[in-house]
């Protein structure tokens, strides 16, 4: 019934991903979120709090860089829902759906573009970290493993953002909800501080948080600690999040488009 082959669908996905990337040129705010905000965080935390938290800025940079990559990944996913909601409220989504285009292409295009943005922010953060003195202990496969793992989790977490994007009334609400939810999720983790330093009653939450698990895996992959266990748990989290939120998002989208 759809009449669109996989190849055509993928090509359309490519065109729509191109569109989401070109949009960045006209929305410096969004680009700023991928770039200036994490850069600011990195500089502030390392040079202002680093000494107090880890004894030296170098030690803190080593500890925090993998975590801030994970944190930033979470924030970047908000733009999947933000962009989708913009298209839904403006009527642009209708224009796409009235074209003989694969039904999944608009969403796939958004998510593909998101992966490109994710890649950009990872490169930016690691590059700046390197300039600040960060050195990895593992060979290059560690870096590659980390990037793949972060992108897989980003892909899964995008579904949460898609759901918010479908349900929210306007793009501002997506942003608001995203940031309100993401600050506690990313801060109640081991991104900025070692688990042992938080109150005991909170340690369970911090350790169970997938952000912490992923951060553990990233630290291991870059710095040579254990990583396999936390990487596997991260993949389980990614699978679980997808299993819950992908069907829910599709259902909500169909409902909204009714």
């Amino acid at each position, binding site marked *: 019934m759809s*009449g669109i082959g996989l190849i055509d669908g993928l090509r359309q996905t490519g065109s729509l991903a*191109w569109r989401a990337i070109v949009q960045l040129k006209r929305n410096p705010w969004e680009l700023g979120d991928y770039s200036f905000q994490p850069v600011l965080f990195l500089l502030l935390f390392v040079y202002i709090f680093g000494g107090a938290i880890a004894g030296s800025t170098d030690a803190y940079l080593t500890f925090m860089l993998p975590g801030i990559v994970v944190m930033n990944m979470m924030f970047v996913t908000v733009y999947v829902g933000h962009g989708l909601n913009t298209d839904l409220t*403006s009527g642009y989504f209708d*224009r796409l*759906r009235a*074209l*003989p285009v694969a039904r999944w292409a608009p969403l796939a295009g958004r998510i593909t573009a998101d992966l490109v943005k994710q890649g950009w922010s990872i490169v930016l953060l690691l590059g700046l970290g390197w300039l600040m003195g960060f050195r990895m202990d593992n060979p290059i496969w560690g870096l590659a493993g980390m990037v793949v793992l972060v992108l897989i989790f980003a892909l899964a977490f995008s579904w949460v953002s898609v759901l918010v994007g479908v349900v929210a009334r306007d793009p501002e609400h997506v942003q608001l909800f995203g940031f309100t939810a993401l600050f506690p999720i990313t801060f109640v983790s081991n991104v900025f501080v070692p688990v042992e330093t938080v109150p005991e009653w909170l340690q369970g939450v911090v350790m169970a948080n997938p952000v912490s698990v992923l951060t553990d895996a990233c630290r291991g992959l870059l710095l040579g600690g254990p990583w396999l266990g936390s990487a596997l748990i991260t993949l389980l989290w990614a699978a679980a999040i997808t299993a819950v939120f992908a069907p829910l998002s599709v259902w909500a989208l169909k409902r909204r488009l009714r």
Partner: protein
Amino acid sequence: MVESAIAATELVKHFGATRAVDGVSLSVAQGQVLGLLGPNGAGKTTTVRMLATLTAPDSGTARVGGFDIVDQAHQVRGLIGLTGQFASVDNRLTGFENLLLIARLLGQPRKKSRHIARTLLERFELADAADRPVQGYSGGMRRRLDLAASLVGNPRILFLDEPTTGLDPRARRQLWELIGERVAEGTTVLLTTQYLEEADALADDIMVIDHGRVIASGTPEALKRQIGTRTLEIRPASPDALAATAAIMTELAGIAPEQQGGRLSIPAGDPALLPALVRRLDQHGIAPAELQLRSASLDEVFLALTGQASTANDETLEDKR
């Protein structure tokens, strides 16, 4: 028999308890323009959304270009162009990028896509703004780009959902001309509008729709005749003669004429009124600068059909969609 370009039978669509579209049937022959006329929330947009495969009807069937809108939605999408009520172009792309994207999505190769985009921008007088982001466009430019975007695939059937809502008269006329050019090339058009003038200017046939139902249909002329109102309008050459003219009209028609500027108008049900008026004016030595017997405007038609002014603007389900 040639199959209609658009044929719908008893389309129904509910939103919760509201019957947004309540049994609409329509048919548009190849190359014809049908105007769906009605106030906000009448069910116009929902009807177009069903025909453009964006939403499935709860009951009823429709064929567009010979394809079923539900079972052959993909084939329908290959034939149609859609211009939405809200200019659905991407604000953050340039005009050129907007059209390029659509051409690419329709499977055109890169070079051909560029050519299509440039040609359309040229034709729609947007060439100068081609490489500027759409967010800086005026309302009229956005609508023109929106229309251009719906023409990228060279569609045989065009759905225009309130294409000029919110535009100033000049921009509206410009858009009408562009639509008229497509019609002259043989494109079938289904147009929704709240503007009676627009339906009158563009449509071969008009359907008046209210509360999800068709309440009248026919050619603009037939609709006006159906209501039966004709209006006699006169402007005396000298403003001094206004009072005397009004007195004569009152005497002949039995009711006082309406005065607007230097014009007097009066409902003219009786065909004998015009010659009688001319005779009397001549006797009194009053020369008319303008004298016409005209059909009722579509505004008057709408008022007579629905019992409410056509500018009804209460927010409804359709707008909140």
